[in-house]
């Protein structure tokens, strides 16, 4: 299991949208590192994934509704992480956080690598699991080739 060090560098107040495997993991880790964390998910049962380290708040609702983001006090957040399984939800929530709530740091998970480019224009950082995984696979293949060439 991964652990984060308590240090000054972590944002104080983080809103996480989506409490799937990624969202719940980030929520636990950041919570443990001393951040105040609010997690939003449309399904209450999703919160079952949260670990014992999580000490923040949970909000049940659709983050595409601005009221839900308001309830999470997104205007005071230092950072918002959009981690749901739906690209369009992540991209919309991220833009609302950036443009309407002026959240300084916003990250969105985007599965479709072809869309990443457009959203860079909107001043939103995206992370593509597809790209990351492709890189990891290729790096591993390359290590293997380099390993063999050493023999």
């Amino acid at each position: 299991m991964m652990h984060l060090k308590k240090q000054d560098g972590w944002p104080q107040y983080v809103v996480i949208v989506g409490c799937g495997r990624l969202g719940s993991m980030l929520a636990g880790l950041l919570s443990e590192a001393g951040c105040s964390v609010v997690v939003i998910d449309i399904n209450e049962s999703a919160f079952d994934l949260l670990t014992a380290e999580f000490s923040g708040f949970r909000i049940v609702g659709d983050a595409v509704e601005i009221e839900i983001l308001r309830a999470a006090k997104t205007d005071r957040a230092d950072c918002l992480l959009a981690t749901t399984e739906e690209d369009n939800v992540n991209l919309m929530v991220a833009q609302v956080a950036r443009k309407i709530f002026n959240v300084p740091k916003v990250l969105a998970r985007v599965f479709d690598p072809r869309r990443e480019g457009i959203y860079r224009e909107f001043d939103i950082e995206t992370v593509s699991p597809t790209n990351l995984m492709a890189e990891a696979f290729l790096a591993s293949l390359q290590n293997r080739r380099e390993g063999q060439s050493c023999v």
Partner: protein
Amino acid sequence: MRVIVVGSGKLLYYLTRQFASKGYVISLILADEAEATNLSRRVRALVMHGNGSAPHVLEEAGARRADVVVALTPKDQDNLAVCQIAHKMFRVPRTVALVNDPQNEEVFRELGVSVAFSSTQIIARILEERAGFEDIANLIPLAEGRVTISEVALREDAPGADKNLRDLTLPEGALVGGILRDGNVIVPRGETFLRGGDRLIIISRPDCYDRVLRVLTGGES
């Protein structure tokens, strides 16, 4: 005009028929394959099955040459993505989106959608205008609803009828901006006399609106 519509159901069907009758060149993108096949037999349009917010699907639908893209799905996030991708990637000059959550009307405009409309808002507005108080017409919210302009009929027996405007204590956040009488428009002053049968143009903050109506017509909204 070249139009791409993303959506489903009756709204899409009837809209397509109307567009077709005007001679528009139409492409439709539907998420459901069976519905797409079915629709393709009933309308004069290029009907595609796919994800309307996927860039390659929009491109295939002719986004590079489209004049308008309309997004009518039941998910606001998808409608936003369709419009933004059409506009940013394919330079579609005009994008129109249905918003399901009325509060997103404002959000969409802020995020670059040319026209965002909420059927909830439209129906609510129609109800406010017509149902219940036929004496009140054209309630128009301005400045994000911080001011409303409405046209109110003054009946013969209304408390405001046959009075000088100055004798009526209107709340501070409201004024009578015009009087329609016998086809003429009168810009009222303090000494202007109100008559039964006048139609009054009332400019008011929403919180004062009920009080103005009570003073003038005796009614409430």
